[in-house]
């Protein structure tokens, strides 16, 4: 009886409301959507503004979508961002150049190796040591980046599927991503936030067993990748939800600066790995997939194909791995010793410690200065860009000749691409907003930095 009364009460007042200068504001938490719509319909104003987020599972982190809807149609869409702003760019100015990698890896947390490599390429350009980076370090950077591209695309496809209700594809995606994170953990010690790529090379060489695990992974992945095709590519429900949704043609892409799969889904094969190669990408064989469909489905197909191409590149990397150093020879930049796991489980090099503590005062001073103060970078500015899974990841680094960055600015592709949300969603259905945003693949850590 009480419950009946309560529900009667709820139907007359489904959501708490209050009057503001802008009209009636309903705060909705749970409840029946129909009742809210009915109640809002009582108001003279036809226009409903829905705040989706910042906490909503399908907004990829703390993204707030402000949708003005008329029935089921979105008439206007805007983004509210900044909820995950952490001041990384400001913080970088208070740490030395090497410590910077620890910060930048946390920006777009799904693509840590791209952030690190882009930053390091910029610093190396400032130092003028781009040509001196050992081949092995460059090959391992490419290897890690391509694995990272796989893991990022897997998350995009997995969460994008989940938002459509396709939970199987979510399980598949995270299953395969876990294999890649295991490799990352083996190589860098961490699943995310690696700080493994350093100005001048890498923090460490590959550990024993890494190549074997990579070969195993390639075998497994070649078996697993076609499953996505079988499950989703031809699936009529999947296609019905994705095709012609989130439409953005080439003109829109160019105007809004959209890069990555969004631009390639409009038919332009622009990929920095081909058009402005770095890390020796011009010597690898791979294709840049495009579609002409300009929609979410096209972007899904492109991501799927890019994963296949990434596997090809990883294979080529494994063939090219030659023994050698992974850090520049310049002792004024490279940290003095390759760390090894000591018997105490901590990373250090006993030979090096013996040398600096027992025999060479100068080596001790040099070590201390290099690690605490860091190296100096000649004054000037540089721009380095890499093709991250989301598009052009550009880094503008400015040095004043000191041991700390004067200014580092990241042009994160998620940030730029998210601007296209309004163009993709306005005029469409509310349910399609989710699909369109998922096809942009924004990561708020990168958007807000």
């Amino acid at each position, binding site marked *: 009886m009480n419950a009946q009364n309560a529900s009667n009460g709820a139907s007359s007042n489904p959501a708490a409301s209050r009057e503001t200068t802008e009209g009636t504001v309903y705060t909705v938490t749970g409840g029946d959507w129909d009742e809210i719509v009915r109640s809002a319909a009582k108001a003279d104003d036809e226009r409903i503004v829905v705040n989706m987020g910042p906490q909503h599972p399908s907004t990829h982190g703390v993204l707030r979508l402000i949708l003005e809807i008329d029935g089921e149609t979105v008439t206007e869409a805007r983004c509210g*961002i900044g909820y995950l702003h952490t001041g990384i760019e400001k913080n970088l100015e208070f740490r030395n150049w090497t410590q910077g990698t620890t910060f930048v890896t946390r920006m777009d947390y799904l693509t840590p190796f791209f952030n690190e490599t882009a930053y390091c390429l910029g610093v190396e350009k400032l130092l003028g040591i781009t040509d001196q980076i050992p081949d092995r370090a460059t090959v391992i950077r490419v290897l890690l980046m391509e694995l990272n591209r796989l893991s990022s695309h897997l998350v995009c496809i997995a969460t994008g599927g989940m938002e459509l209700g396709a939970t199987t594809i979510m399980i598949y995606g995270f299953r395969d991503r876990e294999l890649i994170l295991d490799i990352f953990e083996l190589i860098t010690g961490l699943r995310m936030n690696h700080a493994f790529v350093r100005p001048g090379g890498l923090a460490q060489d590959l550990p024993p067993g890494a190549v074997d695990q990579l070969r195993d992974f390639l075998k497994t992945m070649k078996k697993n990748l076609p499953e996505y095709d079988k499950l989703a590519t031809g699936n009529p429900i999947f296609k019905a939800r994705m095709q012609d949704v989130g439409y953005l043609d080439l003109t829109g892409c160019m105007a809004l*600066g959209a890069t990555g799969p969004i631009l390639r889904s409009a038919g332009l094969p622009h990929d920095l790995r081909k058009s402005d190669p770095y890390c020796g990408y011009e010597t690898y064989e791979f294709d840049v997939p495009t579609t002409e469909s300009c929609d979410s489905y096209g972007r899904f197909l492109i991501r799927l194909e890019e994963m296949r191409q990434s596997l090809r590149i990883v294979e080529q990397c494994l063939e090219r791995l030659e023994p050698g150093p992974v850090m520049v020879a310049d002792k004024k930049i490279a940290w003095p010793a390759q760390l090894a796991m000591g018997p105490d489980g901590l990373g250090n090099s006993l030979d090096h410690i013996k040398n600096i503590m027992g025999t060479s005062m100068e080596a001790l001073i040099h070590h201390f200065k290099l690690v605490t103060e860091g190296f100096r970078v000649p004054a*000037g500015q540089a*721009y380095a860009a890499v093709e991250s899974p989301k598009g052009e990841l550009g880094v503008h680094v400015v040095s004043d000749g000191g041991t700390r960055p004067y200014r580092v600015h990241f042009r994160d592709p998620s940030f730029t691409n*998210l601007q296209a949300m309004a163009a993709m969603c306005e005029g469409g259905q509310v349910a399609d907003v989710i699909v369109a945003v998922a096809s942009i693949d924004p990561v708020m850590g990168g958007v807000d*930095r």
Partner: protein
Amino acid sequence: MSDASETSPATDGNGNGNNVPAPRGSAGGPEVIGVRKGMFGARNGGDTSGYGGLVRTVAMPGESHRPYGSYFDEVVDELEGALEEQDLLPENAIEKVVVDRGELTLHIAREHLVRVAKTLRDDPALRFELCTGVSGVHFPEDRSRELHAVYHLRSITHGRVVRLEVTAPDADPHVPSLVSVYPTNDWHEREAYDFFGLVFDGHPALTRIMMPDDWQGFPQRKDYPLGGIPIEYKGAQIPAPDQRRSYS
């Protein structure tokens, strides 16, 4: 503000006076943008290290001379030609050309920025279709050109990159907006405004994008501290981390 920008030693070294842009190809050395004293960055309290007397000038790469090398000569020639066709003297628009570390930087007078960007985008021989946003840089010691706005333009057609640099004094932090030429700069300019206080004239809705709407100050300026700012959000006050209650 081409007047203000000419106070740098790089361009007034030829006796032309401060108000006349230096002719192209003049002797320009590195451009001093600041002086650092001491060694360890300690500004308050005595420096007991013995290095307190060190003085280091901070000099950015100065003006370059032809030939610039690579595709840079072609880009500059084409841009100058295209500007002349529009009855704009290139010397008035392009303050300085710097080639450094294999990158081309064009220092543009801010009043001509939009015209230059539009030319770079539309001229068939230039075709810089993609703007990768704007990066603000604050040089508090670079007198009357404290705020720099740096744009990177990419030409997909020709596979080229060019950097535009515009400066504005702190007292008049206005730069024309490029949103009309590159709509992608919408959020980028809001970000530069949010963090540096650069006002982009002509932007459709220049509001804060990362910080709360009612935030005071511009956090990425050099005179803004890293921490210790009491957090204010919609009237609520949260003390700085070092002034919060502790239970130790």
